[in-house]
């Protein structure tokens, strides 16, 4: 029986590999805050990934706690930020988007966060005309 020619098999697998590399997204930032998002029932999926910017809110992670304490922090990209810096972040993110009116800000905040932080962020978002927001959550029944 003649052996099957498998010399094209690597190419085939490489093609699948490249497909996955392009389609999926790598985790974009290293988290510096830890958070457990609330659970809700009326959730919607975040549709366009490219139009979403994330704002993380929570206490510093265990490794960083010794350095930064345990009070609530806001993380934008790879660093801690003040609420006032959110505006720059939002405008910068908007610049890099193709459909700027579709911008969505996803707020990933810890359950135990005090509303003061969230309200500050919301006020800044309002001022920078980023009106579509999304409170990140997990699904519950």
């Amino acid at each position: 029986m003649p052996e099957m020619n498998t010399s094209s098999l690597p190419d085939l697998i490489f093609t699948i590999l490249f497909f996955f590399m392009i389609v999926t997204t790598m985790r974009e930032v290293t988290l510096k805050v830890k958070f457990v998002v609330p659970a809700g029932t009326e959730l919607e999926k975040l549709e366009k990934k490219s139009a979403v910017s994330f704002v993380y809110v929570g206490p510093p992670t265990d490794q960083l706690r010794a350095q930064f304490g345990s009070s609530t922090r806001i993380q934008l990209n790879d660093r801690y930020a003040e609420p006032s810096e959110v505006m720059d972040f939002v405008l910068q993110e908007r610049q890099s988007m193709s459909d700027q009116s579709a911008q969505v800000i996803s707020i990933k905040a810890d359950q135990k966060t005090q509303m003061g932080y969230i309200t500050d962020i919301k006020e800044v978002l309002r001022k920078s005309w980023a009106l579509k927001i999304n409170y990140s959550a997990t699904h519950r029944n």
Partner: protein
Amino acid sequence: MAKKKRKVPGLNASSTADISFILLIFFLITTSMDTDMGLARRLPQPPENEEIKQEMKIKERNLMEVRINAQGFLWVKNGVINDFIPEVRELRNIAKQFIKNEENLSSLPEKHPINIPLLGMCALTDKCVISVQTDRGTPYNMYFQVQNELVAAYNELRDELSKQKFGRAYAGLSDEQKVAIRTYYPQKISEAEPKNYGGN
């Protein structure tokens, strides 16, 4: 000198497939395919002038206030209820009753006859507003649950109406039908600037 043509032996490439398989599996594991979920909300437009704070003139019967204090306690005030409520879940039915005003009570939102395409003449409580007020110390989770219940109240009302009128759930309607239902039950959840309730 023996002139022998030496043939270069071919590299054994049979393991390349295995290597690329390992790479493939590595990428499958490290990349995130998970879809992010969340409660979508829309913020009000920024005030045009900082000094002139828009004075919202809302009749008392059209307003339902939900206040969450720093301890996470919930206080609801509308025409029929003015009390602390112990469970967030109760908020859904209170909100539904408020928005619907089935018996046309004078203490609940007033109704206007409006002609909606596809639905005909309807009496709407389109002037009603639910106002959520929080303290700076309010736990985020409590606020989220309140928002969730209010959105749930609207979603349930829209579902009930679309089942009654079109015989299908809201999600299965055509775009025109959805617009009609949304006109019937416009979502009006306002968020006032935070105040101090019950101190920090």
